[in-house]
């Protein structure tokens, strides 16, 4: 068995199993938690509009802070959209998902993928640089932040290297690419990347709570 066979075979199988286990464990564990009883008189009878409002309002810079936060948020948008284009728009990736789920959708031309890949790569590097330079962000950051950055960066970097045949033979680069994806899958449920699954749940609950209390959102 060569490295590529190992990556495509046992490495992916184990990574997918750990990912599935971790995701369902954490989601079930969180969603089945008991809510704290709220004995106060609700200001509004229905709270879900608040959930929606907060999900949207928190996705946009606050006018008061726009000068401070716009750059960081713009960066965030750039690399998230870039990642989505690369992960869900590239034909080999779609075939991978089709193999797992049976779902299929149209792919984008490679030029667009490579361009978004390059932009994503750049944005991710700037994001890391900002975290290292910004005194407050730096103070707030722990291993989880850096490692989550790394496991996100690695597949993009290795994917671009594989396509460019840079640094090693293609099959080796591809194997490293797949192994980096395996690492991402394994870390995903247990670190801050889990925000991808929980971000709207937490914003929604906060929004619903605010609505009930009649706070401005």
């Amino acid at each position, binding site marked *: 068995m060569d490295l590529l066979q190992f990556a495509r075979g046992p490495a992916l199988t184990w990574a997918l*199993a*750990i990912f599935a286990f971790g995701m369902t*464990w954490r989601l*079930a564990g969180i969603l089945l938690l*008991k809510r704290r009883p709220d004995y106060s008189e609700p200001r509004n009878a229905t709270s879900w509009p608040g959930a929606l409002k907060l999900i949207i309002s928190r996705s946009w810079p606050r006018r008061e802070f726009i000068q401070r936060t716009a750059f960081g948020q713009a960066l965030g948008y750039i690399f998230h959209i870039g990642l989505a284009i690369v992960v869900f728009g590239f034909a080999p990736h779609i075939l991978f998902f089709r193999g797992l789920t049976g779902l299929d959708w149209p792919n984008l031309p490679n030029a667009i993928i490579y361009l978004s890949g390059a932009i994503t790569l750049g944005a991710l590097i700037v994001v890391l640089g900002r975290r290292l330079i910004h005194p407050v962000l730096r103070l707030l950051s722990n291993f989880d932040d850096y490692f989550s950055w790394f496991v996100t960066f690695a597949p993009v970097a290795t994917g671009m290297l594989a396509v460019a045949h840079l640094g090693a033979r*293609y099959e080796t680069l591809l194997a490293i690419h797949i192994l980096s994806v395996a690492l991402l899958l394994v870390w995903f449920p247990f670190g801050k990347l889990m925000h991808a699954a929980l971000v709207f749940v937490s914003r929604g609950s906060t929004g619903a709570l605010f609505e009930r209390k009649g706070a401005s959102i």
Partner: protein
Amino acid sequence: MNEPDILGASLARSGISRRSFLKFCTAMASLMALPPSAAYAMADALKRAQRQSVIWLSFQECTGCVESLTRSFDPTLEQLIFEMISLDYQETLQAASGEAAESARKQAMKASYGKYLLIVDGSIPTKDGGVYSTVAGVSNHDLLVEAAKGAAAIVAVGTCSSFGGIPHANPNPTGAVSVSDIIKDKPIMNVPGCPPIPSVIAGVLAYFITYGKLPELDNLNRPKVFFADTIHDRCYRRPFYDQGKFAKTFDDEGARNGWCLYELGCKGPTTYNACATIKWNGGVSFPIESGHGCLGCSEPNFWDKGSFYKPLPVPLADNTPIITAAALGGIAVGTAAAVISRKHQTSISEEK
């Protein structure tokens, strides 16, 4: 005394014109990306060279590699190969059989000890003392070890002798291995392919006779001149891959338009071979040009890398059962954790 077996003389004897010989040398030199002057140097060297003594051993094989060589599209190519070499032992092609054949082999091995080229096709069974393939009562393993001793170099022709090939495929009932799994102390060149392209075999033979050594080899001991690029790197359908245009079935609009065969399981991106440039049948076409994806036949374990029709990125194993089991396990553990924490929450609020 016999006149020495010089290639030039034998060419004259068999009526091969200087012109077609030069044409052959030019073609070989250009195939191997040698400078134009090398064609003349090669012609000169080849003409004066002694015909290279070759011992060809066939082990667990289907004779496809020999077929590929001897039925090469271009009869001059085939004829020239056999002019370049003095094929002293080849079970399929020689007239002699039985004891006479074996003693011819031993004689040739003795006469050109240290100088002959050993060509091997087929893999070597190692299980149960190698009983699964024997010649004249001698196991392939023992025959290979004996013949390798006096060889100047070994050329493994075909994927079976290069990497184990089809006999090596799971579950490998005979314990088949490649030549380089057994012989460690000789220069070995692998010319894989199922079968290899005839001009590739001819090219490396011409190179060995001209320069007296093997050409530069890659990490899997394949001649770099022919195995430097993947099929995908040189594929004429590559622009369609880059535009994201794929045939979805073998007879849809995309297939008729000649779009990329990636989704139909083409293994071109991870296969190193010269099919896309040298092509087959004298340069007529190659499998992808005929509408079928590459099988990856020149790569190790090509038979065990999933279906030929499964796209490359589809994971090799069927992961559904294990993912389902893992997800169910996760739900169970998550639910248990939630139940415990609910109990904990209740007991805290009761304490208050």
